[in-house]
């Protein structure tokens, strides 16, 4: 196994594209090291991107935020601007693993691992996040909901590296929230995850985006759920419609973490609760 520390995302992309054996990118390593130890992967090349300048920084501009691929969960949790702008996303990122894992785990890693249950992915989608992708030749920007194609599968072609996640500056009176269901209080994998962002106008939901995790092969955007909220003050009828739309959008599996029936049901329950939090964060009064 070879280990490399490129000085730029482009150099990393070059290394990956030239490698004939099995190559893996290393940022926090919270997924890769587990897979290595369990014998699930046998890399010929490990490309550690942490030495790339600025890759471990959060950059703020008038347009929003750019979160480098090696920015850890705890750095996100300590970033006041980000927390004020997208508290739901920050909470989702901070739910992953333990304190120790938070010191290492990254948003981009969570995305590229392409687990259907990734906590930060629905929250990124609801917030309108985009992945900045660097290839050996060119760069491209892709909305987060288009990155994951299926369990363990992404849209990245050989040699492509996600350098950062960009987040827009939230419009006025916007709020987001992420809730997940786990049987314990922490150190667990989502059985269901629901992220919602809402923009209000005169106390009424004007725009909404709803994304579900752990209920389908990839995170699911639910336009019907968003429509249920828009134009409402989150009255009981709107919330029931939201729950029904979320449950209808579920396409889960029965596994050791939950049943189809349970996931479908709880997706609706959590959606109602998340919507109320997002609504209040946007300045709405319930």
């Amino acid at each position, binding site marked *: 196994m070879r280990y490399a520390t490129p000085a730029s995302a482009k150099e990393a992309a070059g290394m990956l594209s030239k490698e004939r054996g099995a190559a893996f990118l290393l940022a926090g390593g919270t997924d890769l090291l587990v897979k290595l130890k*369990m*014998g699930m992967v046998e890399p010929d090349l490990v490309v550690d991107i942490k030495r790339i300048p600025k890759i471990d920084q959060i950059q703020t501009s008038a347009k929003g935020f750019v979160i480098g691929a090696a920015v850890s969960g705890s750095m996100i949790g300590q970033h006041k601007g980000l927390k004020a702008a997208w508290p739901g996303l920050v909470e989702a990122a901070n739910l992953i693993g333990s304190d120790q894992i938070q010191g290492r785990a990254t948003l981009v890693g969570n995305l590229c691992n392409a687990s259907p249950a990734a906590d930060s992915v629905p929250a990124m989608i609801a917030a309108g996040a985009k992945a900045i992708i660097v290839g050996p030749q060119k760069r491209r920007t892709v909305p987060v909901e288009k990155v994951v194609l299926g369990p363990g599968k992404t849209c990245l072609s050989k040699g492509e590296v996600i350098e950062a996640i960009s987040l827009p500056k939230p419009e006025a009176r916007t709020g987001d929230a992420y809730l997940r269901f786990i*049987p*314990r*209080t922490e*150190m667990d*994998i989502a059985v269901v995850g629901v992220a919602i962002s809402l923009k209000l106008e005169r106390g009424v939901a004007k725009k909404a985006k709803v994304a579900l995790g752990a209920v389908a092969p990839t995170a699911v955007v639910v336009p019907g759920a968003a429509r249920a909220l828009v134009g409402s003050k989150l009255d009981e009828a709107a919330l029931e419609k939201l729950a029904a739309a979320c449950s209808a959008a579920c396409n889960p599996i029965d596994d*050791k973490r939950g*049943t189809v029936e*349970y996931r479908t049901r709880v997706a609706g329950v959590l959606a109602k609760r998340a919507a109320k939090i997002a609504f209040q964060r946007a300045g709405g009064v319930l």
Partner: protein
Amino acid sequence: MGHDQKYVDKKNYEVVGTRFNRPDGIDKVTGKARYGADASAPGQLVGRVLRSPHAHASILKINVGKAEKLPGVKAIITSADLPDLTGQDQGLADILENCMARGRALYDGHAVAAVAAVDEQTAAKALKLIDVKYKKLPHVTDVDAAMCESAPVIHDRIITRGVEPKPTKPSNIAARTQMGHGDVEAGFAEADVVIEKSYKTEQTHQGYIEPHACLASVNPDGTAELWVTTQGHFVFRNVCASLLGLDIAKLKVTSSEIGGGFGGKTHVWVEPVALALSRKANRPVKLVMGRDEVFRATGPTSSTSIDVKMGAKKDGTITAAVAEMRYQGGAFPGNWAMLGCMTAFACYDIKNNQSIGWDVVVNRPKVAAYRAPSAPMAAFAVESTIDELAKEVGIAPIDMRLKNVAREGTLAPYGPTYGPIGIEHTLKAVKDHPHMRAKLKKNQGRGVACGFWFNIGGQTCTDLNIGVDGTVNLTLGTVDVGGSRSSMAMIAAEELGIPYEQVRANIADTTSLGHNDMTEGSRGTFSSGMATVFAARDAIGVLKQRAAKMWGITEEHVIWENGQAIATGDSHGNLPPLSLKEIAAKSGRTGGPIAGHNEVVADGAGMGFASHICDVEVDPETGRSTIIRYTVVQDAGKAINPDYVEGQFQGGATQGIGWALNEEYIYGDDGRLQNPGFLDYRIPVCSDLPFIDTQILEVPNPLHPYGIRGVGETSIVPPLAAVGNAIANATGVRMSHAPMSPPRVLAAIDALEYAS
């Protein structure tokens, strides 16, 4: 030696009953403590085990040729390298077959071959090069399914014991047990209310943090050493010597610090394999299990299916109780259902009771003891039913229990008549506890449940050696799993009349002390405590002799008080006392080193009883239960070090709550374990639980000098039912399937709403 084990009410203890820091504390918090995987030897190899991916399969052929040729591979073994030396001992033969499959893999994870290589990577590579040809066989993992006529029969040799007439055909039912007394039919006829319910509990693992690990070294001359994490190195020595054909005296076993056992480290798993690898390679072999191996191939307790029928009069008197309990023991027979039968109704004085147990084999790992093995499942069924009965009769659950509680003189369902026991004391303490009066909010409920577990005595051997500076080495042979080094040092200090800090307790290896039974059955503090008292008294006898010699008087004029020899009698009263230190300093000139010794088969182990209170909040929309308050009340006989006693109460309650809420083995239709890791086998994390409150009661055991009862196990018995009763109180839903995980609770709430 005629030591008197009778309890003497000593009011003023100096050391016993106070709280001290752990003698092993510094090593443990600084990481210096050496556990099973922390030993190394020159030239050591890495051992790894190849395990069956099938629930049940014939092993047609194992081709190790390619793996053997891999550079760095020093030995590969299969069952052929572990010839059967067990004679007619089927129990030992089962242990051997569990350590390494013999022609058939009996469960997912069953060891099939093992490798010793120069490093981890080579060993891993070698495992992949071993070619095993399997023929899959039909399997069964559910206890009820395994009892059906149509189930695949796992062992042709199993003919059900305890059934008349003796069955002619083999089955998966290893044994039927029945016990109890009275006439249950007459008892039910007397009842005004009869409740009948069926329950299921899923399989759980002890979940010790430290995986099984050992370092084995066997020499061509038949001498051998084993460093191992174990609850009983003397028993491991005897078992490994029998399996490998070694002489007991030539196999030196050293117990490492232990990162949890809870019964799971009373059984050998990889140790005979490591020894066999070392014997073949002629090099030391270190074998450390991965977490997935621990889950797939060691430890778990039985899953069960239990029917309970209980009847009561309107005044709350339980007139009859019957339990029929089915326990699976994994791929080999055990006596787990029998233990369920013995404990099911043990907290109560029920005139007519009957317990029937069925021990069943399935294609799962061989079941091991888990903290009060078999009792929590029986208590879940019985204590849940008692709450239902109380509801029907219209009596508060706590009063229903007090009305029927067992006392001194009650005939226990498993045979003996109880001496002084503490179950009534714990129930009264619960009834008076402020927790019982605390207000509950919406969606919250409260449950109470009782639990019983035996204590055992067994063989113990202890040495006490006094250094010339007066400090004391206490040499013990019962492995310190729960802090017994501190408790034993406290007992020695109490007897000798010296400060705790003057005593250092150590666990000896098997060549340094006589045989000691395992630390199991809540026996450590009881039996080692007894041997320590006697060894200290033995040493006091020597100290008095030496003092007499120093004074030039006869021994009968010397008494021992407060850590010093005092001369008595008219002619000697003016002699200044001699302290232990002064006597020790002169020991070289008065007869040599001063020591005390004791070997004992400790009889008279007490009974452990507890009552728990649990408050739970249930989210009616997700079925998720949160424990918001929990109190353990248990009889300790005498708490030597209250810190550790409380720790045992809290630890057992925590494990029981984990079992009650989320812990379970999940098998796929293919018979493979789906969740062999701590991510999906969900033990509680710290933030899942409130502070577990404790109350220690002391009803002395009359047959221990200090009144000690074992406290290690009982605390895991009540939680399943306490949580279930609290959920019932919060939601109106009676959960009959543990763990009471969110999907199960939500489904039960839905069913109740649908029905109404």
